[in-house]
């Protein structure tokens, strides 16, 4: 009996986790299966898998025929990757300064930077738009990159500075005695040791940027700067919605983040469990 209890508990835990996974994946699943079905089949049986009868690639054909889609993809990629790079670079640098150097107002600056986690950046949309208009950045990818960098930094600084405090002081001091510059110490000694934390931050930063509809709609709605999420909206009309195309576009949009996530995930798991498991 005693031996069975952990098993029962483990089964219960897995049942809960599996249930949660099913709930979380269900919308994605519905989107993907329906993207391969004809319009009639989508409405007749939304939950059925595509059969020989209902299988139809019309959605993908529509999306790919719309020549701009490659451009939207490219815009999304540029915005996400550049923002991600800037968030990681500046976030890690700020975190290093906060965790490594003693200076007046250190904890105040840390608190100020962390404040951004609690206040949604969208509250400042009007001011941001005015700022972008005034600086002539409306309808550029730069506008989006700047906003997303600002949006991602607070969490990055917060998580990374906690991790950097854990990096051995002796190691940094050994580097100083051996004549390494502070930049070399940061890039060669500290960054590799906080790589799992960097991956965690990367995933949490990347996904909201990729999925965002708000700022592209407001700051960069022009044809040349549309992101994928915004671009998909052309198929959603006030009166008629091309569901095949919308679903196909969304299915395609999942792919790049999935790839990036897989790249980061090996590191991510180590990052989340660091400290919990020695």
């Amino acid at each position, binding site marked *: 009996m005693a031996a069975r209890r952990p098993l029962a508990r483990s089964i219960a835990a897995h049942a809960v986790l599996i249930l949660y996974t099913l709930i979380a994946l269900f919308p994605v699943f519905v989107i993907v299966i329906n993207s391969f079905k004809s319009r009639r089949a989508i409405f007749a049986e939304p939950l059925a898998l595509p059969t020989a009868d209902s299988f139809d690639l019309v959605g993908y054909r529509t999306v790919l025929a719309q020549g701009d889609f490659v451009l939207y993809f490219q815009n999304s990629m540029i915005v996400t990757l550049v923002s991600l790079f800037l968030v990681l670079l500046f976030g890690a640098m700020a975190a290093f300064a906060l965790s490594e150097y003693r200076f007046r107002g250190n904890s105040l600056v840390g608190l100020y930077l962390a404040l951004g986690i609690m206040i949604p950046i969208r509250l400042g949309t009007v001011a941001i738009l005015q700022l972008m208009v005034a600086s002539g950045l409306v309808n550029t990818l730069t506008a989006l990159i700047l906003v997303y960098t600002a949006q991602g930094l607070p969490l990055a600084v917060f998580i990374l500075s906690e991790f950097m405090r854990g990096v051995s002081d*002796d*190691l940094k001091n*050994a580097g100083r005695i051996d004549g390494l510059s502070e930049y070399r110490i940061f890039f060669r000694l500290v960054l590799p040791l906080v790589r799992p934390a960097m991956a965690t931050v990367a995933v949490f930063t990347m996904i909201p940027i990729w999925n965002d509809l708000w700022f592209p709609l407001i700051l960069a709605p022009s044809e040349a700067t549309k992101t994928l999420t915004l671009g998909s909206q052309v198929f959603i009309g006030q009166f008629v919605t091309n569901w095949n195309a919308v679903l196909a576009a969304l299915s395609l949009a999942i792919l790049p983040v999935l790839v990036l996530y897989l790249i980061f995930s090996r590191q991510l798991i180590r990052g989340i469990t660091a400290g919990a498991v020695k």
Partner: protein
Amino acid sequence: MSGALTLTGVSKSFGKTEVIQDIDLTVEPGEFCVFVGPSGCGKSILLRMIAGLEDVTTGEVAMNGRRINELPPAKREIAMVFQSYALYPHLTVRGNMGLALKQAGEGRAAIAAATDRAAGMLSLQPLMERRPAELSGGQRQRVAIGRAIVRRPKLFLFDEPLSNLDAALRVATRIEIARLHRELGATMIYVTHDQIEAMTLADKIVVLRAGRIEQVGRPMDLYNDPDNIFVAGFIGSPQMNFLPGGLVGLSSAQVGIRPEHLTISAEAGQIAGRVSHVEKLGGETLTYVAAETPGLLTVRQFGEQDHRVDAPVWLTPDPRRILHFDAEGRRLRG
């Protein structure tokens, strides 16, 4: 080649708390100097100040007569060995040892020669291409020492280098460090809280407490002729016994007597007590005697001795070896 270090009026404070207070100290060229003290006494901070890793609030740090307060650590011609080894995880043993010379812009051949020489001194040759993660604790510490040797520094700094090693390895590495000191003839400053390391390695011991120097001297001078009760109690293991002077018919407020200078007798003596515990170490026997007034006293005898626990015994101190202290714990000499 080796450097002389002079500290003049050196202090360090964090905000309002002074962690190092007005330290004056000279370390002669080629000397092995050990900073010892209980944890929190400031010995590691002082070492970091000498290394240039902590700012000096007031006072002057000078090497061979030249002020080095403002020099960055890499320019001070020092090398440091850390308690946690602090090897670069991404470099091989060879890379770890050669990095400082590479930073200093030395040629490839010179770096290889210096690393090989250091590796030879520490028998590290079979490990040269491994990474730190593939080494045991003792090997890592040898690599860390090797990394320090490669630079041919004027001054070696050791920050509790043996604390993370197990007992057997600690003794072996201690002997290794002593041998290196003889071979290199370099000035070394060594921080430890372990008074055995201090006694066995040092030419000169600096006993620190709460950011101040309590006493500086050769190990046997500190052992036989301490300036105050703190040094008397800190140096020597088992600890010196302290008792009120009146108990043994003396006028000084407190007296101290080393465990080996007490004789134990079953018939008669100056201090009456009962055996509370006996530790037989083979070569020596430590007997703990519960006396009525001063409490637990330790007696050290050579060889194997039998004392029944709870048996009444009498202790007598050797009058020539008694140290006298005043009520504040200062030594009364003469």
